[in-house]
């Protein structure tokens, strides 16, 4: 059995232990080691990608051990296209985040250790296929995130961190209780209950799961209740409006490097959860409440866009924009599950939609983290100021920064030729036939996004120069080196999305087959 996935998760974990063991004043060593560890994992992820057989939709790099047989718990790892994408994203964003936080002085060893542990938690979540250790890593990712916000964050970090933690925990408890119910229902005298995502998906498809739930609980709608529990768990993470209120606070109070990871990768945990768990196991229930779900997705898209428009703090604006971008993923996912009556070639539309979701996840991860990287660069120069009104006409003073950030902003807007476009395009291509009215309403979101992003550009970069920033330094050489990879990827993926799509196509097709009856 190939243990690459376990090794991939253990490297940052032990790296974090080593870094944590360093003294408080060895910050050079700490950040060096952290960077080294993250680069190793990046190399490892690239190797994984190289060895990944994109044509097959099956799970690869599978590891499977019995762990607690009496409880039906196995150590079960594996990735398909979706998992690979997420692993890659994590591997790419982490070193960037570490580089951005190069100047952290206060308790540097703890900081970098927490970042590495966060990465380990993320890897674990994206590769786990048994609820037990999936949930373990899901929760374990929370702790470093909490402390990163709490100890190095902005003025209001305490309440923001607490709110973030508690909201997520409530969702987690709902998840736990729901899976408990499933476990109980799938228990037979001969075997313990099932925690295996793959097995449960198969049971759902064959209708066996519904029968078992009904038999165990006697209530026809038990499946719906359980679905709601699991939905809540992930809805808090994505987040779905109205469970999103923790996000703007957390994103804006966290140090920007941490926000890179939060928005780049952690938010994808929620969508990943939808794709890996909710959709395969509860397609029936989604169909049952399809319209309300679509409305929730739309609310997420539209309301957050308007909210972003109303913001004056740069980070809060981008935070709401994050919510908005992930809303499209939600829309596509729900539409893909919905019964497709009177639709021409539904499988192709669904495949397109889901393709779009995956691409959107990856691209948004890249773009959003890049945007916050820029915000960090600006903050460094402006001594922490990030209100829109504070700036003005910066392109005259920092043209390189303007240019590069502009590219990222346009990518976020969805300009064709940049990576942000591909995902959104595919989503709309898929959703339009499947749920036309929803697609139409969603375009409002596109519109408002364009408005506020352009407003941002206008306020910050164009217009009369704010006297205060006359002496603002432009990007240094090392900073440019830092930023170039992301920008390059934005172009590459915008022009040649096949680079990524090749790996995920087969998996998406398989997922669609899973969802169809």
């Amino acid at each position, binding site marked *: 059995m190939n243990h690459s996935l376990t090794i991939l998760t253990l490297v940052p974990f032990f790296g974090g232990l080593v870094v944590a063991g360093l003294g408080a004043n060895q910050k050079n060593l700490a950040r060096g080691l952290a960077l080294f560890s993250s680069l190793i994992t990046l190399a490892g992820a690239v190797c994984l990608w190289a060895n990944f057989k994109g044509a097959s939709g099956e799970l690869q790099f599978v590891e499977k051990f019995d762990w607690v047989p009496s409880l039906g718990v196995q150590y079960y790892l594996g990735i398909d296209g979706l998992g690979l994408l997420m692993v890659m994203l994590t591997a790419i964003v982490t070193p960037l985040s570490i580089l951005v936080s190069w100047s952290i002085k206060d308790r540097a060893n703890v900081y970098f250790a927490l970042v590495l542990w966060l990465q380990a938690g993320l890897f674990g979540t994206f590769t786990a296929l048994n609820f037990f250790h999936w949930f373990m890593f899901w929760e374990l990712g929370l702790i470093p995130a909490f402390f990163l916000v709490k100890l190095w964050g902005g003025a209001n970090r305490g309440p923001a961190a607490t709110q973030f933690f508690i909201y997520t925990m409530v969702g987690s*408890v709902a998840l736990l*209780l729901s899976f408990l119910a499933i476990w109980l229902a799938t228990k037979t005298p001969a075997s313990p209950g099932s925690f295996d995502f793959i097995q449960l998906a198969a049971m759902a498809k064959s209708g066996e799961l519904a029968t078992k739930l009904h038999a165990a609980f006697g209530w026809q709608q038990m499946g719906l209740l359980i679905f709601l529990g699991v939905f809540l768990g992930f809805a808090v993470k994505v987040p779905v409006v109205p469970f999103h209120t923790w996000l703007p606070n957390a994103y804006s109070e966290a140090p920007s490097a941490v926000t890179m990871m939060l928005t780049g990768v952690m938010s994808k945990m929620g969508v990943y959860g939808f794709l890996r768990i909710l959709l395969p196991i509860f397609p029936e229930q989604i169909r049952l409440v399809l319209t309300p779900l679509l409305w929730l997705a739309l609310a997420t898209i539209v309301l957050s866009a308007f909210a972003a428009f109303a913001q004056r703090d740069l980070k809060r604006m981008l935070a709401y924009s994050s919510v908005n971008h992930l809303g499209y993923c939600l829309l596509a996912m729900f539409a893909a599950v919905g019964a497709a009556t009177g639709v021409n070639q539904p499988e192709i539309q669904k495949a397109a939609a889901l393709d779009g979701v995956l691409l959107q996840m990856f691209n948004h991860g890249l773009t959003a983290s890049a945007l916050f990287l820029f915000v960090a660069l600006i903050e460094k120069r402006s001594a922490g100021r990030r209100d829109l009104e504070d700036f003005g006409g910066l392109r005259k003073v920092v043209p390189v920064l303007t240019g590069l950030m502009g590219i990222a902003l346009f990518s976020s807007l969805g300009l064709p030729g940049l990576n942000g476009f591909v995902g959104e395009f595919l989503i709309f291509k898929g959703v339009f036939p499947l749920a036309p009215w929803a697609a139409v309403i969603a375009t409002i979101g596109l519109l408002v996004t364009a408005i506020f992003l352009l407003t941002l550009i206008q306020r910050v970069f164009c217009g009369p120069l704010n006297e205060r920033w006359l002496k603002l330094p432009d990007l240094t050489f090392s900073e440019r080196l830092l930023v170039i990879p992301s920008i390059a990827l934005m172009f590459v993926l915008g022009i040649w999305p096949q680079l990524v799509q090749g790996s995920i196509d087969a998996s998406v097709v398989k997922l669609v087959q899973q969802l169809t009856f």
Partner: protein
Amino acid sequence: MLAWTIYISFIGVLVLMLLPRDNARAARIVALFTAVLGCGVAFAGAIQQAQHTNLGDVTTIVKTSWIPALGASYYLAADGISLVLVVLTGLAAVTGILFSWNIEKRTKEFFAFYLALIGGVYGVFLSFDLLLLFMFYELTIIPKYFLIARWGSTRKEYGAMKLALYSFVGSHLVLIGLIAAWVVARTQLGHPSLDLMELSKISLPVGFQHWVFPLVFVGFAILAGMWPFHTWAPTGHVAAPTAGSMLLAGVVMKLGAYGCLRVAMVLFPEGVREWQWAIATLAVIGIIYGAGVALVQRDFKFVIGYSSVSHMGFVLLGLATLNTIGLDGAVLQMFSHGIIAGLLFGVVGRMVYDRTHTRDFNDLERMNVGKLIPFAGVTFVIAGVASMGLPGFSGFVAEFQVLAGAWQVYPITAILSGLGIIIGVAYTLRAVQKAFYSDLPPLAHSDHDAHPMEPITVPERVGAVLLIAASLAIGLFPGLLMNWIDPCLKSPMFARLLNGGAQ
């Protein structure tokens, strides 16, 4: 071999009494040596029994006739569940001594009482004769009282007396039930008997069970901290010295729960079924009430004290489910909470209070504790996270199983317990923030600038690491203990209890 855990502890007491009066160092070393030896014997005996016998069977260690007129025998035995708790006692004993390394006042008497308490606890977990079990159970009350009254802190005399009286009343309730059961069993058997194995095989009259069971169960449950008889626990825990709290919350409360399981439930299965709903209700109230009250405390130690009440609620809920997985979870939670509570009290009592001399959050907020003793902060975070039930630590598996068991019988209790878990997250987070990582500026002229806090000593570190390792080990490999517990639940002793209820 396991009986030596008891004897070693009491021999340790004797040796300590003979030591010269003011030699604290000698006292500590003797005490630690005794505890480690006892712990070693416990582990060795347990592993030996696990390998050579079927853990579902009760393996006799010693059995001699004692008072034939009563049918009482000196009967020590162990099955898988006993082994789990014996191992817990061993760990708790050693770490408690490590965390009390700094006791200077009348050290040898402190450790003498401490070891006497440990010996009594070992005795309870290994007794299979009702009179013997009861004797060891009551025996533990006296050392507890003196440990708190002499070496405790806040309101120590009041707390000690309250604890002793509550425990005494509880054990007397049990006594009434035991005597009544003895008489009725004697009529049924034809000869007097206090042998637990023998009594577990007969069926006492159902009407009798219906009123005897609540008596005996409540008697034991008082010590287990069941709501509303729990009020001794927070006061007692806060008043007790660190090692006292660790033992109290870690092990002594488990005596009550063990008594509930081994005596009340095994002997009176019809009684349990009759009162199952009441136990489950009170357990859930305890979970939520304990967590809710912990959320609003100003005193750091009170938070942990009330959290103990909440966690024991899980144990009682597990017991009330009357199915295999719930009982499994209950026993596992006994072990898990024993370790975690020990860790929590160790941090609060020894690491923080002994240095800051205050447990008030309003004061701690301004002391920058997290920066001055980072080891304490990190340990508390780990302990808090384990206490929240984070997967990877022992609490998760235990709570998960209890919830699974509860869902099968009274689903609403599982949901309410989930609420309790969330409140648990909240109060733990609050405590972490206020005590260690608060954002408030430190006091300008705190006298701790003049006396920087002494660094965390080696015994504290060793104790903390031991406990964390134990919790992690069981969290990651719960099979280690579940393999001991599961066979017991399939044994004839528990068959009557489980077969009638939902599986």
